[in-house]
């Protein structure tokens, strides 16, 4: 792992919402093909952390390097950075006025300037991958939650990002649909995608994650392998949290 390229480097990241100090100096490094799970109690700043990394939120201070580039520098076009980072949301956020395939091809066509045919080809291949090829012309409204989330993953992948962020991708799903989404994510992990995943799906994390970042009140209180965190931690807050979610 040591010789792998560093994909994300965060140095002393702080975020304030007015008086609320949400992120209190987070530093971490994510290597290529690493899968990092972010865990922690609700309100601990997990979403804010991910959203700062692609500047959906502006960090208050600190440094963020994506593929070695300081993305907070003034000469950076953040839209180009974002094309390198796919993001999947808890509430899917598919575009309701577009069909599945239109959702997927929109960004490749208008940002990457692909032709309609290229974008559709790429989109169909991705829909195939998430096992939804037959739903290409369906509007999100008519898809189940699990199907919507898989389309959302395909939409993010269509930009061929180097990194994927998942913010509680299965929290809004009915239990019987969680598996199908986690399967897709597992496959991505196997194929070597660099991933940061906010999730409390223990099974998935144990199997797919290389590391767990444990966040409490905007600080990383633990950073270790799943085996370490789940079986050998002695940290009080971690134990307390784990006892609640199991």
């Amino acid at each position, binding site marked *: 792992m040591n010789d792998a390229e560093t994909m994300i480097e965060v140095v002393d990241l702080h975020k304030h919402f007015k008086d609320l100090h949400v992120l209190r100096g987070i530093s971490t490094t994510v290597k290529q093909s690493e899968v990092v799970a972010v865990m922690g109690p609700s309100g601990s700043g997990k979403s804010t952390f991910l959203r700062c990394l692609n500047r959906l939120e502006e960090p208050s201070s600190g440094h963020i390097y994506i593929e070695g580039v300081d993305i907070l520098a003034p000469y950076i076009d953040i*839209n180009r950075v974002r094309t390198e980072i796919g*993001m999947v949301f808890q509430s899917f956020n598919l575009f309701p006025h577009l069909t599945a395939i239109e959702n997927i091809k929109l960004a490749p066509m208008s940002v990457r300037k692909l032709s309609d045919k290229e974008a559709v080809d790429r989109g169909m291949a991705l829909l195939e991958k998430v096992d939804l090829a037959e739903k290409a012309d369906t509007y999100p409204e008519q898809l189940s939650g699990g199907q919507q989330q898989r389309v959302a993953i395909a939409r993010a992948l269509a930009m061929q990002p180097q990194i994927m962020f998942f913010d509680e991708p299965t929290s809004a799903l009915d239990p019987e649909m969680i598996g199908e989404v986690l399967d897709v994510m597992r496959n991505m992990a196997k194929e070597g995608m660099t991933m940061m995943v906010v999730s409390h799906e223990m099974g998935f994390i144990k199997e797919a994650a290389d590391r767990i970042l444990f966040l409490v009140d905007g600080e990383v209180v633990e950073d270790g392998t799943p085996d370490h965190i789940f079986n050998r931690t002695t940290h009080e807050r971690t134990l307390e949290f784990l006892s609640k979610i199991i």
Partner: protein
Amino acid sequence: MSTRPDNTHKFVRTHPSWSVWLRRPPVVALSFALLASYAVFLLPSAETESSLLFYLNINLFILYVLFCTGNVLADGKKPESLKMLVALALIAIMCWLFYRYSGAEWHRLREFFFNWEKLQGKWWILWQGLEVTLLLAFISGIGSVLIGLLVAILHTLHSPTLNFFLRVYIDVFRSIPMIVIMVFIFFALPFMGISLGSIVTTVLALSLGYGAYATECFRAGIESVHTGQLEAARSLGLSRWKTISKIILPQAFPVVIPPLTGILVAMLKDTAVASIVAAPELLKRARELYTSETNPTPLVAAALIYLMVLIPLVRVVNVLENKLGKKRSR
């Protein structure tokens, strides 16, 4: 079969219900009989000099008519056909009362209100006025939609300074009566050396005034789009403008169209204000005819033309609003 417990005492009516009692058929019949005899025996003739007692009497009668008819109309169990009959009777009685007691000189109605001979060979003047009205509405409609769209999009930049000035524009133009805006541009600005023709004045005033309303309408539409949509688009690397044009606006439009149509219809009506600044639109032309013919028939004709144009549009707005309502409640 199990026996039902007897809990009637828990739900039985303990207060007398006047509304139920009043709607019993014998009671309704009796009240209409009383109404008829009141009309025949108690109502004064029109020639009676007007006194306090006279007005009191008429008003009492009207109240009683409303009471009797309202009693039937509010009854959910009565058939709709009967209600329609009662409603028509109510209207007839009111018209009759107005005819008999208003003191208007009815023989003049034909001569001054519906004297179509006066308009013979002059209808083209009104049609020309209508053309100008529609043209004014069309151009100002485009103007106000463009202004509304622009201001609403600028609003999405969330810049406090910019928003302050946009707010000033919206509030100022929503607060000044349209007629004041027009009069100001047409009669006051020339003193500063700015003379705009009546057409330009009208288009400018209507666009600015209704642009402020359109802005609010577009803003509400844009705000109805979930912020998650914006985040999803931005996280894909879409630029601000692409996000607005491909994600936000297509979702906002279905929400915007019904109220926007309503605003444009209101604007079409307000083109009549332009007659104050001598724009040759429908009302202005009708008033010219009214002066030259010394007969108000052209005004009646203008009113009828406005009705003919606007009733269908008002219906359209209504249909659109109902559709939106259904979509929202799904």
